[in-house]
């Protein structure tokens, strides 16, 4: 059992849609009064791709995510009230392997990003709920195109571009040096509270039981999801992520580009 699956089942309550790989769970349900599609990538010990059995986002997962969101866009195309899309995020990484590179995993993950971005642009409120890891390419594909990102507070909830050991090797430092740097360089930190200072998270929630939500936890998270939908309103962009002190260069660059355009 994975956190992602537990939270998905608790929040969405229904049966997973047929026609998807076992690693991509798609459940249609509701959020308050509104229709919602809940999506999670989960471990599948029998995944045909051996390097994608522990909840990684690989070839099948990338394309299937694209399919799951594209379906929603198509089904709601002529509706005024667009379904909410909730990405329940617990993804340790993208899949690393020869088959993956050979078959174009970069393109498969682009399929997922395409779906989520277009859903947002079409007027669907898209929310990412981080219940575990949200790493690198996997998070880009599943969650990072949402208008609002909500994280649960727990050491197992982390956002980053690369695991510590690999990052240390590539930057020719020790893990201890990396951790020390992360203390004075917030974008390098692994914990969710440091991540929150970058202004990318909309809300961080504490829950009683991170692995298997208690009733109180569910109520609090649902309430937060509802508030997020309200906060999104008619917004279809990612501008809400700009403005934190630790991201001021991102705003300054945009201002100067505009002035010189």
């Amino acid at each position: 059992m994975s956190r992602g699956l537990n939270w998905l089942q608790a929040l969405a309550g229904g049966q997973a849609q047929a026609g998807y790989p076992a690693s991509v769970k798609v459940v249609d349900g509701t959020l308050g009064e509104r229709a919602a599609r809940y999506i999670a990538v989960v471990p599948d010990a029998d995944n045909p791709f051996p390097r994608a059995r522990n909840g990684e986002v690989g070839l099948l997962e990338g394309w299937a995510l694209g399919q799951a969101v594209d379906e929603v866009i198509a089904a709601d195309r002529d509706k005024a009230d667009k379904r909410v899309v909730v990405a329940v995020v617990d993804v340790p990484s993208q899949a690393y392997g020869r088959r993956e590179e050979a078959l174009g995993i970069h393109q498969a993950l682009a399929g997922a990003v395409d779906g989520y971005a277009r859903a947002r642009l079409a007027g669907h409120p898209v929310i990412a709920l981080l219940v575990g890891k949200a790493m690198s390419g996997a998070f880009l594909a599943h969650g990072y195109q949402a208008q609002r990102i909500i994280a649960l507070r727990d050491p197992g909830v982390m956002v980053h571009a690369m695991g510590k050991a690999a990052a240390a090797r590539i930057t020719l430092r020790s893990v201890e040096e990396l951790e020390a740097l992360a203390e004075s360089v917030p974008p390098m930190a692994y914990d969710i509270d440091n991540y929150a200072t970058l202004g990318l998270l909309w809300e961080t929630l504490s829950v009683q039981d991170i692995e298997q939500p208690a009733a109180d936890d569910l109520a609090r998270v649902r309430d937060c999801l509802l508030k997020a939908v309200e906060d999104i309103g008619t917004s279809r962009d990612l501008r809400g992520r700009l403005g934190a002190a630790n991201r001021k260069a991102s705003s300054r660059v945009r201002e100067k580009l505009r002035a010189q355009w």
Partner: protein
Amino acid sequence: MTDSSAVNVARLLKSRSFVELGARQRARALLDEGSFRELLDPFDRVTSPWLPKQGIVTQADDGVVVAKGTINGQPAVIAAIEGAFQGGSMGEVGGAKIAGALELAVEDNRKGIPTRAVLLLETGGVRLQEANLGLAAIAEIQAAIVELREYQPVIGVVAGSVGCFGGMGIAAGLCSYLIATREARIGLNGPQVIEQEAGIAEYDSRDRPFIWSLTGGEQRFASGLVDAYVADDTDAIRAQLRELFALGKPAQPRSRRHAWYLQRLADVDTRTQLDAAAVRALYEGEVR
């Protein structure tokens, strides 16, 4: 000598390697002559706020050149990544330059100005010294490509020698069209990371022919993951770019073809490893 072979010799003598050019020269070479105007140029000194505190020397443009100009007389913006600086990795400032330029191109199109974009992708992905800000910037670049693509083709050029990896490999997959040379590689994970995570038998990061056989420009073109395969020649790349813009937006972007790809992937025998020929056979036969 016949007239046509004299022309060929003349062309050979004039041919310039695109791969050997730096980012700024590449951008200038691809825009209409004389139209290049750089935004946030190095003299503006908008540099990384994060590198100096780690003892890393910054580059005045943070490794990204953004320039406005024209392509065949139409307004265009080009973002060129300098692969020589920190492996072309995306930091907060460089990433914002690309995302911001694409966002402004979208605004132009909403106002009826048909600004199109070209991305010169020479990057290993996120700059680990800026980790989460690099990753967030890449998400915004991806968002802007998807949005701009609705109005104008967004064309990516991967020339090498760094290639295009990480989150920017995903961005390449979102482009309306991709141009690649033989020197180019396009993928998600860098060879060393795969070797570290999955072992040398799975992926030998020092086996260059093996790596290019799977992720090189020629292979990607032959497998339908790249739209144009060109010689490492500035004039040829210029011409190819203009040809693709003239086609207009593709009927269906590759990144929307989940049904097609899932069907093909269902046919893969994953009990054995895969080689380049098998991938080409799997993905070929598509009328684009």
